[in-house]
């Protein structure tokens, strides 16, 4: 049965069809083709034809032309629009013309790296071989590493390896850097926030090293749709880029359906559970030949859905293994197997967290079901992009949860479809990030006096490092690294802590999965039910020091959820600024997160069937915080006191300041300077807040301004009153 036929049945179904609150159709799009550029080496053109590439899409042609002309370029088109060719073609062309030419491919994760190298390998094979492309990451054996350093033409890696492995050891890569012609940054949309800001500095370090060895590589960026791709690419590479954004690849008709589960308790406004609704929707399509991907939200959500769908398949007498889960924490081999089975259509449903949002090659699917709004437009489009065929019809179904944000989104379909994705923001000149990256850069090559590294105060930072911190030494007109350590080891690119907890199945004696330390507190405390591929394991013991959890498979009718208490205490107040009717403080805080207990919740109903204690050390981090304390007058006038109309949150007054206080902290050990930026630009930020609140057309609040209505009917009025005083 085709997707279109199944869709018609869905819409007319008395239960399921009733819940569809909006239905939009994206028309079919025809391909716009272009010829291979004349200037491409004839051997390469031949190889393309051999791989079935007779002609290009127009966007590919534009991108390739730019790259061949040594212009930095950003390709920003949909999933499966042939972005890989946009860089493989110019890279291989350069290599065919110059045997010493090399290229660096950067991917945010190891999994993607493997995939994309396979694509390059197919073209290389058609060229008759002789070009060495390989992955250089933590899994690469020493022998292969040496071979790539000494003779690799295309080296694919990730930012972490570039940061600690390649750049600081550039004398081992002299040949590679001398010949470096292209730097490819795929999945650029993943480089935002702190991580993206670090990656921009990695590129500064890379370009310094290239300059030392006399090369000047061209950047090719590839990205999913963003509001500001050119801006992001320029921030990452430090140079203006040509943006190619008109997607000329074909796609079939695509349906967007917004589903609001039926009310089960009108008085309380409770709707049918999102997972249950998702199960029903998927069960309508998947067993009828509709290849489906489900985004289940949290890891727990994924495991519950896998269990529910497997149960459904088993009841229908079908093989439950046609349903698979996919998420971070599964071991790499399992993930590779699932990816392959998806490409080969050996499974019917995959339920995933956002781990499959990135460009891992799983082929194109017929249906994408989102169990809840993924919290950003960019994520929504990434996930929706997984469904879509060149010519056949496909569908995306968004199922709303009961919470206000989801309710707003499903009842305002234009909010998603009319608006562009969020802008991707990075701040490479953030002082903490840049100063740390400058240490790494100075280790790699001395700084010349007068040399710039991003923002304008490079000289001042260098002077500080030389005269006070004692890690650089000025000799002649250069600053040299003059300390022992290896700075890249001490600078983390993101908050991810590599200190994982191993999940061990005591019966099979095998490692089931790995989990990062903060999540381990929530998911594998003693007594927790840990779910893996829809099966339940109980945690018998958690050895926190040894980073190991022992689990045993069990048959229970409940899952568990941990409760976390967050406690912030102020260590120092370093800076203060007076606003119209408030005081802003900046200082160090200690944030303690303690898992205190867990709840047992019954499958399907979510009924609370018991609790248990958790005894784990608190996770503590010291970081920067900004504390905004409202003056008592203003709090009084706005109704922000116990029992007042603005007191939506209990205990609003901070015990330390005895006034309503707003804490903002960097959720990153040591802080990354975000708070400082907020503190410096507080006036501007408050003014922007006021503009958003006053400019929003909604009457009483919505997710785009002060948040959903549940914050209190008065929320928008109170927020406006406060902002008018603070940002006059």
């Amino acid at each position, binding site marked *: 049965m085709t997707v279109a036929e199944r869709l018609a049945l869905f819409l007319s179904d008395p239960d399921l069809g009733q819940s569809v609150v909006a239905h939009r159709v994206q028309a079919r799009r025809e391909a716009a083709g272009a010829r291979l550029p004349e200037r491409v080496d004839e051997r390469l053109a031949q190889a393309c034809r051999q791989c079935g590439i007779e002609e290009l899409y127009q966007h590919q042609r534009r991108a390739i032309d730019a790259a061949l002309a040594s212009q930095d370029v950003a390709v920003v088109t949909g999933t499966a629009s042939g972005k890989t060719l946009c860089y493989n073609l110019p890279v291989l062309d350069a290599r065919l013309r110059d045997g010493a030419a090399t290229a660096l491919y950067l991917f945010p994760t190891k999994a993607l790296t493997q995939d994309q190298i396979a694509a390059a390998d197919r073209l290389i094979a058609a060229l008759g071989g002789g070009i060495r492309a390989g992955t250089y990451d933590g899994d690469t054996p020493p022998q292969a590493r040496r071979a790539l350093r000494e003779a690799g033409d295309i080296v694919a890696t990730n930012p972490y390896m570039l940061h600690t492995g390649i750049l*600081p*050891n*550039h*004398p*081992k890569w*002299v*040949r590679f850097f*001398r010949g470096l012609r292209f730097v490819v940054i795929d999945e650029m949309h993943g480089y935002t926030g702190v991580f993206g800001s670090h990656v921009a500095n990695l590129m500064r370090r890379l370009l310094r090293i290239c300059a*030392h*060895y006399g090369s000047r590589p061209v950047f090719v960026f590839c990205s999913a749709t963003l509001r500001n791709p050119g801006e992001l690419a320029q921030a990452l590479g430090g140079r203006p880029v040509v943006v190619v954004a008109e997607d000329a690849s074909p796609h079939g008709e695509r349906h967007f359906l917004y589903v609001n589960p039926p009310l089960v308790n009108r008085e309380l406004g409770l709707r049918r559970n999102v997972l249950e609704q998702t199960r029903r929707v998927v069960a309508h399509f998947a067993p009828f030949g509709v290849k489906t991907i489900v985004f289940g939200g949290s890891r727990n959500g994924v495991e519950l859905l896998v269990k529910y769908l497997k149960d459904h398949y088993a009841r229908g007498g079908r093989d439950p293994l046609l349903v698979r889960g996919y998420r971070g924490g599964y071991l790499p081999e399992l993930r590779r197997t699932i990816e392959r089975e998806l490409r080969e259509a050996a499974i019917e449903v995959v339920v995933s967290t956002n781990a499959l949002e990135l460009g891992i090659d799983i082929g194109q699917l017929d249906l994408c079901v989102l169990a809840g709004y993924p919290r950003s437009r960019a994520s929504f489009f990434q996930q929706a992009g997984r469904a879509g065929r060149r010519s056949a019809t496909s569908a995306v179904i968004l199922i709303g949860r009961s919470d206000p944000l989801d309710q707003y989104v499903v009842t305002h379909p234009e909010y998603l479809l009319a608006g562009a994705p969020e802008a991707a923001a990075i701040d490479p000149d953030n*002082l*903490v990030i840049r*100063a740390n990256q400058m240490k790494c850069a*100075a*280790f*790699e*090559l*001395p700084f010349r006096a007068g040399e710039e590294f991003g923002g304008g*105060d490079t000289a*001042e*930072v260098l002077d*500080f490092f030389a005269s*006070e*911190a004692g890690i650089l*030494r000025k*000799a*002649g007109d*250069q600053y*040299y*690294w*003059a*300390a*022992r*350590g*290896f*700075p890249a080891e*001490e600078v983390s690119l993101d908050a991810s802590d590599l200190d994982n907890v191993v999940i061990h199945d005591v019966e099979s004696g095998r490692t089931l999965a790995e989990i990062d330390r903060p999540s381990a507190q929530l998911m594998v405390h003693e007594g927790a039910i840990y779910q893996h591929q829809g099966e339940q394991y109980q945690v018998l013991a958690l050895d926190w020091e040894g980073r190991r959890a022992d689990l045993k498979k069990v048959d229970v009718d409940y899952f568990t959820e941990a409760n976390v208490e967050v406690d912030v205490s102020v260590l120092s107040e*370093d*800076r203060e600024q007076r606003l119209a009717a408030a005081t802003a403080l900046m200082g*160090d805080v200690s944030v303690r997160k303690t898992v205190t207990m867990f709840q047992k919740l019954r499958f399907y109903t979510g009924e609370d069937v018991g609790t248990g204690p958790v005894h784990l050390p608190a996770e503590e981090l*010291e970081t920067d915080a900004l504390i905004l304390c409202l003056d008592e007058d203003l709090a009084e006038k706005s109704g922000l006191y116990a029992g007042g109309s603005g007191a939506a949150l209990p205990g609003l007054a901070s015990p330390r300041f005895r006034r309503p206080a707003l804490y903002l902290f960097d959720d990153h050990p*040591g*802080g990354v300077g975000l708070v*400082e930026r907020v503190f410096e630009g507080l006036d501007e930020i408050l003014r922007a807040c006021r503009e958003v609140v006053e400019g929003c057309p909604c009457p009483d609040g919505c997710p785009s301004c002060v948040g959903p209505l549940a914050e209190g009917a008065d929320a928008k009025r109170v927020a406006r009153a406060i902002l008018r005083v603070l940002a006059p």
Partner: protein
Amino acid sequence: MSLRDRLRRLEARAARTPRAGKEAGAPPEGAAARGLLPAALEVRESEEEGVVARVSRFSLEERHGRFRLGEILDVDAELLGWAARHGGPLPPRDALFLDTETTSLGGGAGVYVFLVGTLVVEEGTAAVEQLLLRGPHVEPAFLERVEQTLVRRGHLVTFFGKAFDRHRLDDRFALHTGRRPLTLLPHLDLYHVGRRLFRAVMPDTRLRTFERALLGVERVADLDGAECPDAYFDWLDGVDNGRMERVFQHNLIDVLSLLALSVRVSAALAAPAPGREAAASGLLLLDAGDEERAVAVLERAVAGLEADAAGVDPDLRRAALELAADRQRRGEGRAAVLLLERLAAALPLDAEPLLRAARIAERHLRERDTALDCARRALGRLEAQAGSRAEEVRERVRRQIERLRERE
């Protein structure tokens, strides 16, 4: 808040997180290491572009620990070639003994080689040249000078240099010139051969340990290698607390020990102490392909077979098995069986010597009774072992016994 204040705040927080790193100890009273150093004929120090060069010449009659420096000239070039797995002789006159000091014990582009110490034997003396980098900004001139020294000799002798010194120096050359000149040189790394020869009789395989146990060199108040980087940074800052002089001395002892250890290694290969040292030497020579010499050394090894109260070490066991195999090949089956019997007596749980003896007795000596006796005893030892592999072997021995009995 000024930029400087903001940076101070960051560094202060970073300092709150404890980091690995050694505190430099206070310099001890009087560098007593001097007492054990050979007296130099002359010491010349000169300042050149980028470099402070110090050349110390020693008479070959001087001693370093138990060894006379001139003994290096008597060393067999072929043996050193075997020791380096070089595939050809390494004449000691062509040796460049090399040891470096670096600004960090790890690697990476920010690690400078600041002191290169070398020793060569020339004009009847041992000449130690120590080149000190005058500052990171003059590194190209320094490296040029280092290269002039490198080309004076045909091969390197280091301790752990294949993993360390060679890469550190080559990284510096690569960064400035794109070349890696040390990689091309034949290289005897005394760490690897020392480990192979002396592991069984040493608590660990550090140079200090070898010096004490094999060379008779005891360092007193020597600067810890980990303190050298700080001493250099202080010197660059013009802080002269005498530590740089101690770095020079530390490095000087290192290169002298390289020479002495080379002599000791070649002695272990030419005339090893009976027992374990001989076993390791013989096996090394056997692997290198020098069978004739290997057999002679293995004879020395098994001479001490019964004497070893601590139990037979794996090298010695393998030495005896190899030697027995060699005898059998030469048609000296009886001698082979006798040797295997001795090994079996020294290793009361090991079935292998008896299995081999039984095979040689059956096939080569054609002595049914001896073969049957050995096979039965081997089976007795095998009974005590578990596992499918043991069962397989047992089965084979049972068949052998069967076969031998039929011939009765």
